[in-house]
């Protein structure tokens, strides 16, 4: 190819850079990141996966077919130009690769780690038809980590100052993304966060060994680098109300991203015994308050020798694996359906098994027994079988009459789900909610009140990080349109 032709081709989206024929690419096995051995990792909180190094990343990038119609990009909730960034990894131009990702996702080091890729981008990847799909998440993480390590981050240019103020409630992934996006669009953004640190579930829920907290802090710093102010220790609905934000503090729009943090309990006898925790309490003590470093840190946590975890989602896996790292003899996990129905990510179920968590499937706790001091001593479960499928097609668990098992336990962790925290809904007149307490939003993320937008877990119930990110982006677009229009009306 002549130089000129090549230059012309460079401009074309679909120029192939990888000089291997597709059948050859298809033959390369999916690269496996280096993971710490289970025996080693259950003794500490170090990150389980070391991710890709330059060599693994290059080899993995080589597998991409550079599809004409990249379906992966459509399956990503924020439509990252996956083909383009993989191509840049192949060219070893990591600075451009991360820039490319940041155009669509401002939290790549986080999403690359915790996104359920297997059911999103990687699920549709064409390579997956014959071989295992591209490790898109791991590649995303690789470039994000590269940027962090090499420190060559420069915040995107902010083109114009719109001179309008927007408040964001909650510094979880949704709030952080909305804030970043709005700041890039030229708005003056303040995030109000109830806790003393920013990050939401990324900080207090997802454990250090899956998502190190220094990574979350670094991504939060990148949001701050855009000029976003983060005010911690402010509970909207208590310290300030949304109406005060509008009427007294001159905010012109508000994004609510307060998540679904309120733990659900089972309402069975014995649930208030000492030694029974919600997963949120256990995880917050460990992740946010660093109870695993007690007494260097002041917050205590008591984990006994026989831990029983109830639930089958990501939260239950995190609770079980976190407990396992605090030194008990055994961790039992009880789930009322079968393994196929477990909502947790396959990777996490696999990690939990490797770390020695005992799964008790088709068992449902019905009572917790205590000793004479009010401490948990055993848990009684009813055996279940699968019945007819429910509306979602999952087979309903049905109790088997008279069949129970009782197991010793001195710690019980309830991980059966979270509901939205009601403070905002109760203190914001006119904000419509569902019967489950989630805030109702329309297709652009607007709530029933003018100027108030919402997204993430507060409107979806428990969902995922990338959906919260996607909602944050949608709302920032909608807020931009709303405020631009508002300004135009004021001018005329």
């Amino acid at each position, binding site marked *: 190819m002549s130089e000129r032709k090549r230059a012309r081709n460079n401009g074309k989206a679909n120029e192939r850079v990888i000089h291997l024929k597709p059948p050859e690419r298809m033959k390369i096995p999916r690269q496996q990141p280096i993971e710490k051995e289970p025996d080693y990792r259950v003794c500490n909180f170090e990150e389980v996966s070391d991710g890709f190094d330059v060599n693994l990343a290059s080899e993995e990038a080589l597998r991409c077919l550079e599809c004409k119609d990249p379906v992966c990009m459509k399956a990503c909730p924020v439509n990252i130009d996956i083909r383009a960034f993989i191509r840049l990894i192949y060219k070893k131009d990591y600075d451009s690769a991360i820039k490319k990702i940041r155009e669509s996702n401002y939290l790549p080091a986080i999403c690359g780690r915790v996104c359920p890729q297997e059911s999103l981008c990687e699920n549709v990847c064409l390579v997956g038809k014959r071989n295992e799909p591209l490790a898109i998440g791991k590649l995303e993480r690789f470039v994000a980590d590269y940027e962090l390590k090499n420190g060559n981050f420069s915040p995107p240019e902010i083109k114009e100052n719109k001179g309008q103020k927007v408040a964001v409630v909650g510094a979880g992934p949704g709030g952080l993304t909305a804030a970043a996006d709005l700041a890039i669009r030229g708005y003056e953004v303040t995030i109000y966060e109830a806790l003393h640190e920013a990050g939401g579930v990324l900080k207090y829920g997802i454990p250090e060994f899956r998502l190190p907290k220094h990574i979350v802090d670094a991504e939060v710093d990148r949001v701050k680098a855009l000029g976003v102010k983060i005010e911690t220790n*402010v509970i909207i609905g208590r*310290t300030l109300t949304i109406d005060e934000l509008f009427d007294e503090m001159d905010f012109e729009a508000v994004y609510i991203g307060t998540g679904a943090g309120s733990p659900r309990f089972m309402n069975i006898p014995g649930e208030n015994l000492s030694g029974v925790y919600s997963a949120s309490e256990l995880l*917050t003590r460990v992740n946010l*308050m660093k109870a695993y470093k007690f007494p260097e840190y*002041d917050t205590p946590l008591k984990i006994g020798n026989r831990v029983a975890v109830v639930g089958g989602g990501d939260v239950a896996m995190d609770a079980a694996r976190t407990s396992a790292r605090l030194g008990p003899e055994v961790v039992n996990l009880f789930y009322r359906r079968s393994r196929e129905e477990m909502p947790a990510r396959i990777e996490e179920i696999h990690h939990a098994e490797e770390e020695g968590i005992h799964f008790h499937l088709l068992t449902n706790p019905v009572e917790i027994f205590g000793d004479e001091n009010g401490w948990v001593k055993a848990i009684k479960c009813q055996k279940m079988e699968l019945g007819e499928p429910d509306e979602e097609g999952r087979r309903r668990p049905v109790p088997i009459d008279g069949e129970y098992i009782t197991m010793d336990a001195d710690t019980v962790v309830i991980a059966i789900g979270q509901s939205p925290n009601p403070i905002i809904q109760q203190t914001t007149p006119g904000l419509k909610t569902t019967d489950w307490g989630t805030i109702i939003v329309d297709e652009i993320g607007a709530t029933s009140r003018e100027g108030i937008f919402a997204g993430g877990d507060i409107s979806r119930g428990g969902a995922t990080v990338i959906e919260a990110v996607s909602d944050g982006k949608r709302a920032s677009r909608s807020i931009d349109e709303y405020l631009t229009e508002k300004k135009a009306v004021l001018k005329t």
Partner: protein
Amino acid sequence: MYPVISKTTIAPGISRLEVEAPLIAKKRKPGNFVIVMPVEKGERIPLTIVESDPENGTITLIVQAIGKTTHIINKMEAGDHFIDVVGPLGEPTPIKNVGTVVCVGGGVGTAVIYPMAKALKEAGNRVIGIIGARNREMVILKNEMADCSDELHITTDDGSYGLKGFVTDALAQVIDENKTIQSVYTTGPLPMMKAVAEQTRKFELHTMASLNPIMMDGTGMCGACRVSVGGELKFTCVDGPEFDAHKVNFNELIQRNKTYFNQEKKSLDAYNEKCKTRGANV
């Protein structure tokens, strides 16, 4: 950062701190509390807002040294600062003019009952105050309580001041003498609140207790503060802290509050040891 503006010791191991927190001072209502974290690596603990000064942007806290965190706070002086203070939390006390009310505070619980008594008085109620302490030295907020009570009874366990006995002894007398009591409010150690509840139950006297379970976030996110009230699960930090004392399962709460007893003790012992060696070095 939340600077300490002033600090005084009002009884052995109990101090009063004025802390700058303008947003909270402006919003605070009687019955509200804050969650504070005094230092990096510290613990988040709940404390009642005893008073607030919206103009100067300060709140007043009264803290009894029990474990490590409250010991750290007791050592703070004007010019030091809390790294985190969040609030105002909890539902404010519903304040109405109902006639005659009794406010029973025991120990540092007096700091919790005082703002409620004051608000009830300002709303026009006849307030009968009862405060109790171990001994003369430990009686706190005597003058403040006297100012907002039509009648004030003080008890000490050893009889070194006021009536010898417990607050429940004074309460028995008050109930006997006043036939028109509408409500009783109580705060203090859990066994005391339980005793008060048992006592007023016999007379079917409406009684509210401000509970003090273990808390962490204070926003309804962890469930550590859950209590059974009338058989229902409630989160003290968002649904309370005040509940109908006749419906609260005190035994359960007393058990739950012992959850970390051993760890907290270790942590305090280590802290005291460190303070001692430091003290010896200077």
